[in-house]
């Protein structure tokens, strides 16, 4: 029998049992799926974006199914950082897996407020900064403008000892530029991607399907876009990249690792298969074993580009 492959990876100071995390907004505050899913199957869990105050979110409908994907316009409905610390942390603290808390807000001060409140709080392993939620006005600005993205990360970097992970949007001309800027500002890692800007129209009523008109596209449909973004970011920065977008299987996870990711997050797939974390990690282990790979770390960024043939192709 082959030895179990070593699945552990590090995101800076943060050690993960395996590289499969649950993505923010798709796993609530852990306890919901915790009722019937073994959370320790995950390398870690990223909780729903928190704002300083409870936030009502967008008008419904907030979701629509699309070809191999879904649109959502939740608009960051969340309990607010106080209720989170009071009501959700006791459960999350007992959970046997890494806890990454996702931080959001409108102006920089709100991010700062949430970050400060969480930095005091025992049991949190890292913060992920949602600079890219397309569903709140202004939310996009931070990760579409390299300067502002850098400013936000600097502001947070200086007030917490926790690892700071910047989560980027794909809805930009060059995600590599934003990545360089947040790395320079001190981000310990980069998560990519958040959802793609998308929309659907109900042709019967001639109304937008989503109450908020536009929303974010996720699921298998966006995987090729996510892989391209991860590859681009990994080519531009030295900090670890966490790949997100359309992952449903262990092979999908391998694809992200080979393209340059150090870990991955599973989002929409949780809705389809609440045990996706477990199955992706298990399939990843199985694939490594079958491919004689002793540590997933050897996969990271291992893509080889074949040299183009010496004789280029001439015009017809």
């Amino acid at each position, binding site marked *: 029998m082959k030895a179990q492959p070593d699945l552990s990876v590090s995101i800076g100071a943060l050690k993960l049992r395996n590289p499969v995390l649950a993505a923010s*907004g798709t796993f609530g505050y852990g306890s919901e799926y915790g009722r*019937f899913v073994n959370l320790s199957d995950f390398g870690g869990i990223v909780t729903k974006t928190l704002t300083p105050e409870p936030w009502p*979110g967008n008008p419904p*409908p*907030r979701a629509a199914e699309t070809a191999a994907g879904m649109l*959502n316009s939740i608009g960051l409905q969340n309990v607010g950082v106080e209720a989170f610390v009071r009501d959700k942390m006791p459960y999350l603290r007992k959970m046997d897996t890494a806890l990454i808390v996702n931080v959001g807000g409108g102006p920089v001060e709100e991010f700062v407020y949430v970050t400060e409140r969480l930095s005091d709080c025992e049991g949190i392993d890292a913060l992920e900064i949602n600079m890219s939620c397309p569903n709140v006005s202004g939310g996009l600005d931070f990760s579409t403008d390299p300067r502002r993205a850098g400013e936000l990360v600097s502001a947070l970097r200086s007030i917490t000892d926790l690892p700071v992970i910047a989560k980027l949007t794909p809805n930009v001309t060059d995600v590599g530029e934003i990545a360089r800027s947040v790395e320079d500002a001190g981000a310990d890692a980069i998560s990519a991607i958040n959802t793609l800007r998308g929309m659907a129209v109900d042709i019967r009523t001639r109304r937008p399907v989503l109450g908020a008109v536009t929303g974010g596209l996720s699921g298998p449909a966006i995987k090729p876009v996510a892989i391209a973004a991860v590859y681009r970011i990994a080519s531009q920065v030295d900090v670890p990249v966490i790949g997100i977008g359309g992952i*449903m299987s262990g092979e999908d996870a391998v694809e992200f690792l080979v393209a340059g990711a150090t870990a991955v997050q599973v989002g929409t797939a949780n*809705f*389809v298969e*609440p045990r996706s974390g477990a199955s992706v990690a298990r399939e990843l282990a199985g694939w490594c074993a079958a491919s004689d790979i002793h540590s997933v770390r050897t996969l990271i960024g291992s893509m080889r580009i074949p040299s183009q043939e010496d004789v280029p192709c001439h015009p017809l």
Partner: protein
Amino acid sequence: MSTIPICQYDAEILSNRQIGPGLYWIDLLAPEISRHAQPGHFVHLIASDVSKDSSRQTWLRHTPLLRRPFSIAERDPEKGVFGLIYRIVGGGTEILATRREGERVDVLGPLGRTFEPIRAGRPVIMVAGGVGVAPFLSLAQETVRDGRSDPAEMTVLFGAATAGLLSGEEKFRQLGVDVKLATDDGTTGHHGLVTDMLERELARSPRQCAYLYACGPTPMMRRCQAIAREAGIDGQVSLEGIMPCGVGVCMACVVPCVIPGDRSSPRRYERVCDTGPVFDMEEVVL
């Protein structure tokens, strides 16, 4: 959040048959779900065949991508079976209708908040529109089975577009529950809206209804709210909502709610899958 355990089952299809135009009944073997389910619970299922011994890529097995929610219409806890009634409206339900006896369906449940039980001495009316009848089949069946109330104290008002879509009706009669039918096209029963029937019913014998349940299209439920308010009757509605997760994590399925009785109180968004699908009639803004 209910304390009933959520199970995920690879449930065997015991039967999957057409019972009306575009209308189907499916029986699934899932002992734990069937043991715990209460009237009002729903399940979240994967319509397509997702068996793992397949060389199809994971995403290809999962087309369409999301689970589909259906109310439990009947259960037999002894046999470990529960039944759903479903109408073909799009790709998911059409694929479900092609699934055969002996195949397996990935099903998550029981989910959601259940109905306020029916109690003896408190007569109720259930207003059902189309497949909205499903949870009332459960409610009537369980109530009679437990002997909690006399079948004579339950009235079902069941409306649909046409007679063929009133399937399920006979099950109430078997339980001794009175059913009054309405169809939009007049093919059977009252020719018109089921809510008109409700108004007539309440006008005729107001004491016959201490509590009102409604499940069906939104306009129907909105009208039921108004009628109940006017008549001063309490009640519950069972709602639908687009449900990516079905278990309260994604925040997609929300409906605006107010403090019951205070329609001008600040609204908050509540999850249909978790705080509902059953809500107090006066709590939701439809």
